[in-house]
């Protein structure tokens, strides 16, 4: 089984493609989106994406807006902000809005994998907790 299922969101197509190859090679399942809108659409259509790696600066809907939308529509999906140095402030702002962490471009592959693994496990924990809570609720009702 793959380490995690992720989605790369960036307007730079060559970047997304190179990253996809490298991450796939490292046992990650990678989905691609080239704008905030596309990412949102794919997420709400129901994918098994656990972690979104989201570029901050994009034409049209930028990273922060996309993050807000993701957190509203699919709150359990973890988001890692990917940023150039010039937009560190907005990445930090993203953290306040509920992003898991932020990474600087160009990013170190091992560091990225570690972060994604962490994020994915947290997502799974959260899901587990929710399932447990539901089970408790159901059993409580039965009792």
């Amino acid at each position: 089984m793959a380490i995690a299922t992720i989605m790369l969101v960036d307007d730079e197509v060559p970047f997304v493609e190179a990253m996809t190859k490298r991450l796939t090679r490292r046992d990650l399942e990678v989905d691609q989106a080239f704008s905030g809108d596309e990412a949102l659409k794919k997420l709400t259509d129901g994918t098994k994406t656990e972690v979104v790696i989201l570029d901050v600066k994009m034409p049209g809907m930028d990273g922060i807006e996309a993050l807000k939308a993701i957190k509203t529509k699919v709150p359990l999906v973890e988001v890692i902000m990917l940023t150039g140095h010039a937009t560190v402030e907005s990445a930090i702002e993203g953290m306040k809005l509920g992003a898991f962490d932020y990474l600087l471009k160009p990013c170190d592959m091992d560091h990225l994998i570690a972060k994604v693994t962490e994020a994915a496990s947290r997502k799974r924990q959260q899901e587990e907790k929710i399932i447990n809570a539901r089970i408790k609720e159901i059993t409580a009702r039965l009792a």
Partner: protein
Amino acid sequence: MNQKPKSLSPYYRSLTRNMVLLVMIISLAPMVIVTAIILNQFSASYHEKVFDHLEELVLKHKQNIDGFLEEKLQNIRFLADNIDFGQLELNGIIGKHFARLQNVYGTVFVDLGIINEQGDQIAYAGPFKLGKARYADADWFKKAIESRYFTSDVFLGLRGTPHFIITVRKTWQGQKYIIRATIDFVSFNRLVENVRIGETGFAYILNREGRFQTKPIFDFTPTLDIYTRYFSSLERMAKDVEIEERLDGAGVKSLYVSALLKDGDWLLVYKQASRDAFSDLGNAQLIAIVFFVLGGIVIVALAISMSAKMVRRISTSDREKEIMNQQVIETGKLASVGELAAGIAHEINNPVAIMVEEAGWLQDLMEDGAFKSEEDIKEFERALNQIRTQGRRCKAITHKLLSFARKTDSRIEDFEIGPLIEEVVSLSAQRAKYSNVELVTHLEPKLPAISASHSELQQVFLNLINNALDAMDKTGGSLEVNARQEEGNIIIDVADNGPGIPKANLARIFDPFFTTKPVGSGTGLGLSICYGIIHKMGGEIVVKSAVDVGTTFQIRIPVKTDEPEASDAQIQSDAIN
């Protein structure tokens, strides 16, 4: 500043000239007016004084001479009353009387005689041998026998020397007798000769025929008609003395003071050259003129030296201002470069990230050791190509930045504006893309060259485009840059459809340090610097804006003209239209 005084530009030369003229007019005009008024007043009052003085002098002498004549006549009348014609020894009596006269009055009386009705001198006392002289045909006798008292004009008579006589008529036993006394011409002449003032002032007496009754000091021939006029005007007028200033026979302006003598028979004339009479006035005027000229020279010298000094000071401060302006432009440029750099750093980050990932991918492949297959080698080539492409992208971006970040060069060059606008637009393209702004240019082909500083103009467009992008950062929109030629000018519009500028701010946007951005985000110098740069090159920048519709900055830059006639013709045709 220890700069050598260098030749000033025409602007400063005309400034100097205007200042010199102004200072000279302001300081010389009151001086001229005051001097003229004072001189005029002084001259008028001095003329009056001189006229009064001469009038009085002539009047006094008229009275003197009249008195002298009257006195002599009285003497003879007194004598006549004392002569007893009954006595035959008239000669003896006359001699006695004559001796007594000479005793009392000196040699004023030259001789004394008695003449009967027939004109024969019947008695005589005096130095001449005129005992039996006959005067029946003499003019004076004819007049003397007609009136009781008579004073003759000066004539030569029998003795051949100039003299005049006083006669008193007396009737005795039905016979008329004339007692005649001759007045010494020299002593009478002395009365008039004494009237002397200055170098040229002298007096003389004329009779109605214009003949001299005294011997004038200066030899000249009197003009008869003028003196006839004096006679008539003095008789007409109540005044005793008349003064006239006119040219004399020799063409010298002279004063003529005249008075009637001897019941209007004689004319006493005092003549003096005006220059002499008013010599004090002349001196005063000369001194005034000398002072005026000296003062004028000092004023002119001061005006010139002070103006030169002031203008030099002005030109120095203008130069300093120019340096300051340059520094402000430099500062503004730093600000816009900083803004630009943030965007560009991000732009470079993207290709760098791609290169890193591609290189990492190659490394991954190598670690697998599987690059022997055809497929792997293709993948290798593709990755390397991608790295090269992205590397070039980095290079292009850094070059754009470098070309702009060079030190501001305010040298004026001739260049076309199209490529410059394209360059600035491409620099901002990435930022526009992220702000979701559609950035388009419509440049008329073959725009003529303009004369300006390349880097300063770059800054103008960068500022305008940056401002527009800032305004539309949140909303997105479109930004159009249009350039066209219009009547010897190039018109460039930078038009956005952003939020617009509120009316209250519109009037102030070109003011230095006016900004609507939060503290620390903008200097407020951008538009002020644009305004300065455009105006320096003789152009114009205006703004039209409506809230929620958009903002248009319009720049007009004059085209560089090689032939000034062409632009003249342009203006003419404009006038006709």
